[in-house]
């Protein structure tokens, strides 16, 4: 009968308990449903718990830190010597180090990535795509230690031939290598964004007599701009969070010099340095780890949120 074949429907429409519904309940199917749904839901909450844990952990120790060190000294001081006597807690040299490596990396990755994306989406044949896409995936998948190794054993010696003054540990080497690392990200995401632009837009432009250069720069890229920009931001955020390649290539000297030929220290490599020495719990030195980590987390979070917002705007346009 209808009721036996569609027990769910039966439950919904009948106030009294039909036989089929009672038998389901007895067989425990509904309880099973409930249990499974609870399990699935609790797994999802792990992600919320993780974020909460990160925020609580970082913030609480950072607040402790700010009890001993004034925020003004931290954010505006230009000397970072937390482990020495006399100690100084100005974080700007670390931020500066992160900044010049990231800007250098962006200068390499963004134009190159965008050019590659344009080539892939506008000019490359399918066969060329099938070679280049895996290459990009491979470049993206190479572990960061390998890039650090590459920086020390290949990039720096090559740089020394060109610039004899450059030190063994220098920011330029780190920037180059991080740029190569995030290049695939820009290329792949921009390629996706550009391919999503409807063919009709291109065809319209060609029909009006535009050259491929004009179509690309004046129609396609502006149309896919939000995806392209999102890729830039994500690449920058990845570059900021990069640790091992920078630690190996750029050394560990907090430094605010303008030249990229010297050793610098980024926020990430400071965190590694402190944890390798493992200053244990308590004490201002340990808390510096959290203060710097919070700053790092906040910066990458803001960039990620902005890029998400840009991406969502993009999704709406082509819905």
């Amino acid at each position, binding site marked *: 009968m209808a009721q036996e*074949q569609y027990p769910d429907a039966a439950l919904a429409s009948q106030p009294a308990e039909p036989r089929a519904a009672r038998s389901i309940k007895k067989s425990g199917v509904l309880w099973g449903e409930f249990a499974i749904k609870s399990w*699935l839901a609790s797994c999802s*909450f*792990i992600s919320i718990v993780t974020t909460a844990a990160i925020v609580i952990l970082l913030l609480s120790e950072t607040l402790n830190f700010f009890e001993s060190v004034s925020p003004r000294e931290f954010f505006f001081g230009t000397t970072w010597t937390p482990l020495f006597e006399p100690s100084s807690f100005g974080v700007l040299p670390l931020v500066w180090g992160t900044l010049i490596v990231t800007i250098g990396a962006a200068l390499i990755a963004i134009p190159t990535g965008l050019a590659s994306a344009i080539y892939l989406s506008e*000019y490359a044949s399918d066969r060329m795509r099938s070679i280049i896409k895996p290459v990009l995936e491979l470049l993206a998948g190479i572990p960061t230690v390998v890039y650090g190794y590459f920086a020390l*054993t290949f990039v720096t010696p090559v740089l020394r031939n060109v610039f004899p003054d450059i030190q063994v540990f220098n920011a330029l080497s780190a920037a180059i290598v991080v740029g190569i690392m995030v290049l695939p990200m820009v290329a792949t995401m921009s390629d996706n964004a550009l391919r999503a632009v409807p063919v009709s837009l291109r065809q319209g432009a060609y029909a009006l007599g535009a*050259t*491929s250069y004009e179509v690309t720069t004046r129609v396609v890229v502006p149309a896919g701009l939000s995806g392209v920009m999102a890729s830039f931001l994500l690449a920058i955020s990845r570059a900021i*969070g990069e640790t091992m390649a920078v630690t190996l290539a750029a050394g560990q000297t907090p430094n605010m010099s303008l030249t990229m030929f010297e050793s610098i220290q980024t926020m990430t490599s400071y*965190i590694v340095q402190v944890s390798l020495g493992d200053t244990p719990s308590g004490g201002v030195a340990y808390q510096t780890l959290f203060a710097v980590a919070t700053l790092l987390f906040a910066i990458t979070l803001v960039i990620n949120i902005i890029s998400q917002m840009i991406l969502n705007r993009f999704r709406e346009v082509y819905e």
Partner: protein
Amino acid sequence: MPLTTEQESRHLEKRHRKARIFAIFCAAITWSSVLLLAVLLYQVSIEGFRWLDWQFISSFPSRFPERAGIKSALVGTIWLISLVALISIPVGVSTALYLEEFAGKGKISKIIEVNIANLAGVPSIVYGILGLAIFVRFFALERSLISGALTMSLLILPVIIIASREAIKTVPQGIRNAAYSLGATKWQTTWAHVLPASFPGIMTGVILALSRSIGETAPLIMIGAMTFVAFLPEGPMDSFTAMPIQIYNWVSRPQEEFHELAAAGIIVLLAVLLVMNATAIFIRNRTERRMK
């Protein structure tokens, strides 16, 4: 003022020439990244190749380069992948299923989604700090494999969730509707139809996430993977080392031989990655054919 025909055609030629140059420029840049990859792989290979032999894979690290090997690191890495897979796959896939199949479109789902997207972009070292504070100190799991595995699981969980969701989204709604119309409950539909259909896509995403986690060093350093480990871990509570840590250790030494050893270690690491990626691509290709 309108151009003469001759001026126009010259102008047109200039524009087309510009377009051609631009095309060549973009092509050159793209192929140079291929060249770059080739250079990188070549560099690693010539430096490391002479150290790559069975002795290298089966020996423990040593202060003598000729005797040093990657055994403890390789086994540590394999232990890590296995534990991470065991932990992160159920949790990640469950979350993806919940978000796609069971949760409403309400506020809570939105919050979880935004959360996951943000977590995917958090630097790996922050996960390392989290792992140190929570697993090593708070849960007192010490500097063990399980601490490392839990930390790495948290790290790749967002990636697995996002990839699984994409895979589940591609399952045609018709399959679900057919099941519902036959009276199946939501879970029955999911377990018997949606999950098997999206399984290959999920697997691809999982394998790629795992292969990315193999190369991560910073969180493991925070957890405290040891500097000198000349034994194989026997259980999840043992201390350990992993390939990226061993490579980092060797690269940091000034002697040329250790740099070459690092290169050999990198070759082994890349080989493992290649196997995993090839598996993922293989599964992806087989699925695409099957779905058609």
